[in-house]
């Protein structure tokens, strides 16, 4: 699949990654090669093979519904850039 720079820009935006013009050109080549490999994989006949959702042949263990965590807000908020009244402060979010 031929990738264009706009695809790279969009992917970077969705992942919130800052990408310079030079890097973007490089990524177009790199990612195109990766996608070519995916195309190759997709040409394989997988009829009747169920998707592998996890490499381990194990199933999810469940925990009992019990409150085991205590309030550690002060400790967690020590590494937050800004807090007020117990709230984490972030740049204004406008919907």
């Amino acid at each position, binding site marked *: 699949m031929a990738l264009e720079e706009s695809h790279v820009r969009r992917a970077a*935006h*969705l992942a*919130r990654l800052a990408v310079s013009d030079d890097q973007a050109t490089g990524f177009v080549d790199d990612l195109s090669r990766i996608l070519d490999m995916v195309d190759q994989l997709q040409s394989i006949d997988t009829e009747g093979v169920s998707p592998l*959702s*996890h490499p*381990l042949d*194990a*199933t*999810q*263990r*469940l*925990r*009992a*519904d*019990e*409150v*085991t*965590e205590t*309030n*550690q*807000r002060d400790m*967690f*908020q020590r590494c937050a850039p*800004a807090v*007020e*009244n*117990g*709230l*984490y*402060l*972030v*740049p*204004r*979010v406008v*919907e």
Partner: protein
Amino acid sequence: MQWETVIGLEVHVQLATRSKIFSGASTAFGAEPNTQACAVDLGLPGTLPVLNEQAVAMAVQFGLAVHADIAEVSVFDRKNYFYADLPKGYQTSQMYHPIVGPGDVDITLDDDTTKRIRIHHAHLEEDAGKSLHEDFLGMTGIDLNRAGTPLLEIVSEPDMRSAKEAVAYLKAIHAIVTYLGISDGNMAEGSMRCDVNVSVRPKGQEAFGTRAEIKNVNSFRFVERAIAFEVERQIELIEDGGTVVQETRLFDPERDETRSMRTKEEANDYRYFPCPDLLPVVLDEAYLDHLRSQLPELPADKRERFQSELGLSAYDAAVLSASREMAEFFEEVHHVCGDAKQAANWVQGELSGALNRENLSITNSPISARQLGGLLSRVIDGTINGKAAKQVFQALWNGQGENADAIIEAKGLKQVTDTGAIEAMIDQVIAESPAQVAQYRDAEPEKRGKMIGYFVGQVMKASRGTANPQQVNGVLIAKLDALL
């Protein structure tokens, strides 16, 4: 042109677990900000989710209650997007293999007909935190206590054709989750929220119109109003030559309108993929059988039983089974007094009227089911008449006595059925009312029936409401007619 409305609902139900879906932090409502957000909920590096067994059990119970296929294997996926109240940068959800498959719910409409609404699927996911947009020095405040609260998202098929049907469906879901006890269903506190997909199409057309999604509607009334507004907006738009665009809208209850929230120009691309931190959830038949055996009686079954076993009308059965609280109250009253019709009449009449007047819910009723049942027992066994019963009800409501018997005793409301006593009172009333007796005697026979009311009233007054009215009526007619 005739238009048809097409509605589908996505209902988010907060499950009533004690701890979060992937961590041991508490889910209790109303705590100080961020005191119930642990390292897992905050998405700190190195933490791993462990699934809450109760959340799984509750999702399965819901699935069984709506006759759905329960997935033998379900898988959690990551739904990626950036928002400050979602600390991990993704919501753990189930996109491709949800735990609950297709099912259905029957709703009852105003004309007593039922309609089957299909459920597409229901999946488990985690709730996000809350953003507080009041001004914190130009910043937004984030409370992550809600982050990680288990949600069951129930997605319907686009089977509803009016706002009324949508509300009836939402009420049916509410009744099921509260009957099951898997959620408190408190819409004001956000325990149940709803996204409404609305589109319109010319009547008779098969293809759906373009839909708008109204996010986060949090009351039955708002669902109805949001749909009403949205339908009108879309029809007007199309009739004026425009086209509906697929978008997310917000309902503003204060202005009674929906507004565009985000344009899909930068369409959300959630890049779902299976969550590598969680293994597939595998449920076996024995587990499902165990949960099936523990299902309580559900609203539809209760309603059916109220009609077939207790002989209630379709209307009474529907009202009394509508909520778990109402049904439990009624059943307790019935259990105590033994007469379903009396219990139904009083719960829906006197009690509901009094609750509505004071804006109380049945869970906050000043009269307990046991007290009301005790009162009705005294009506049924003839200790008091209907009139005295209303006095006793009022006294119980005002907290003037422990139970009906104490109030009957204290107020001397015991019904007088002693014929001698009643005759004595009647004789006295007749003796004191010569003018009315003369009128009665001179009246046309067919008019006398109405005139008897005056004498009955006087006797009831003389007995302070305690005389048995049927008895008074019978004796009075005999005595007055003897004077003719």
